[in-house]
């Protein structure tokens, strides 16, 4: 009798958990499906490679794609060396102390700064004070602050995941610290570091509030880093809020999601391949 009650509770609880798990899938499916169904008809070579035109922003979204990739790539270029070296410091050189605690706290804080705050910060510092104006470079700099803690953390984790025995092995063979770090530790952590960078780039691609205030909203094909541009997210936001060209909005949303998915999937693939190679 009691045992039956126990089994019943168990079964009910398990059902609830199944529901929770499947809900997430359903939601994701709904979001993707909705965007896909409504947007797939829109996407074509023309949509991707032509400029928007006409009263209702007909045509393609090419400048926004370029601006998005431009600003993201530039941000990656800026952030990668700094973040990786910072992580090397934290993981390999730092001794636990106030300095390290401060750095970690700052990194955590930076990671949790709302993107709108980062946007206003970029506006105040890069756009206005430094006079870069609404431009790709302002956007990239602001985004790089957004990405910095993410890349730093994943890189540090990647470095720390390299077993200490491996370091000892290197020291034991008569390697100096830098030799050990550069020849053994970083290569060992490389694929996880790259994964981290890609993931953070995916986040940058999907970012709106930062770029809207740093790169501007103008539809323009940026060439120089000082050119303004409109990212895909901003474009989507404007199309959605204007409600003037919903098919284009769906198309943009779909492309945007495809891009973010591509970043995510390639990161996962890298990680899995790496796991297989080392496993």
């Amino acid at each position, binding site marked *: 009798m009691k045992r039956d009650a126990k089994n019943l509770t168990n079964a009910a609880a398990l059902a609830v958990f199944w529901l929770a798990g499947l809900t997430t899938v359903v939601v994701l499916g709904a979001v993707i499906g909705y965007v896909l169904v409504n947007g797939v008809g829109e996407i074509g070579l023309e949509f991707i490679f032509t400029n*928007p*035109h*006409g*009263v*209702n*922003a007909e045509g393609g979204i090419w400048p926004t794609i370029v601006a998005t990739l431009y600003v993201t790539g530039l941000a990656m270029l800026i952030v990668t060396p700094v973040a990786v070296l910072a992580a090397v410091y934290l993981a390999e050189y730092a001794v636990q102390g106030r300095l390290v605690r401060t750095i970690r706290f700052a990194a955590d804080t930076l990671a949790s700064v709302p993107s709108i705050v980062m946007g206003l910060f970029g506006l105040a510092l890069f756009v206005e004070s430094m006079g870069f*104006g*609404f431009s790709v470079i302002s956007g990239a700099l602001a985004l790089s602050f957004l990405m910095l803690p993410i890349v730093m953390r994943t890189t540090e984790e990647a470095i720390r995941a390299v077993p200490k025995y491996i370091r000892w092995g290197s020291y034991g063979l008569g390697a100096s610290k830098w030799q050990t770090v550069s020849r053994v530790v970083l290569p060992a952590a490389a694929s996880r570091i790259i994964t981290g960078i890609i993931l953070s780039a995916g986040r940058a691609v999907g970012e709106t509030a930062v770029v809207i205030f740093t790169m*501007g*909203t*103008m*539809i*323009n094909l940026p060439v120089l880093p000082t050119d*303004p541009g*409109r990212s895909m997210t901003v474009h989507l936001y*404007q199309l*959605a*809020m*204007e*409600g*003037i060209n*919903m098919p284009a909005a769906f198309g943009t949303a779909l492309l945007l999601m495809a891009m973010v998915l591509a970043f995510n999937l390639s990161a996962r693939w890298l990680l899995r391949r790496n796991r297989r190679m080392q496993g």
Partner: protein
Amino acid sequence: NGGRQHAADQVIVTGSTTVQPIAEVSKEGFEKAHPGIHVLVSGVGSSAGIENVIAGTSDIGTSSRDLKGDEAKHGLVDTPIAYDAIAVIVNPSNPVNGLTKEQVKAIFQGRITNWKEVGGPDMEIGVVNRDEASGTREAFSKIVLDKERFDPTAVILPGTGQVRSVVAQAPSAIGYISLGFVTPEVKALAIDGVAPSEEAVVSGAYPISRVLHFFTKGEPTGLVKEFVAYVLSPDVQDRVVREAGFIPVTARGDGL
């Protein structure tokens, strides 16, 4: 030109989302006619456009309202480019077909909250307002509310199209958009018994109408001047402006 230095081959146009379509299509035509020239257009709302042109970050500020307050002090030059009427729209399923200007004012100030008070069904009124950056809102406020306060609890949407689509979906909604954006999805109400139409606007019978502006800092020069001229050309005025649902500046002149 004060403010920031623009590249010589750029015209930066920011401001009203109402004017946005005219500006964008004009940009395409202008760029085609002037290869190598870039016209950068962004729709950020009338106030922002004016702000930008004052700050010098834009060459042209587009606006769906007149200058107000301090804005007039900066020596901006106004070029009217089209007429627009503001239609008060409701869901097509709404049996109400017309309101008085007073009723509209009361609704948008939150004094009338149920459709039955204006002869409709017993249904709470869903007021859709525009954001403060909006020139449409500015004009609406001036014409209908006599600059009195809007109901602060109303939904605020930052775009014309959004207002239209919300009203199109929600049976209880009421909003206002440029006459040019009215489609069969929504129903434009007669105000004080006058249905919004070009004739009614041109004739002055429809009470909620306004002028769309280009503001420049000083008289337009160079490329900017050429762009303004292009927008005023019959090509744009008769084709684009009308296509976008506005009434050309030339129309009233003609009509008068």
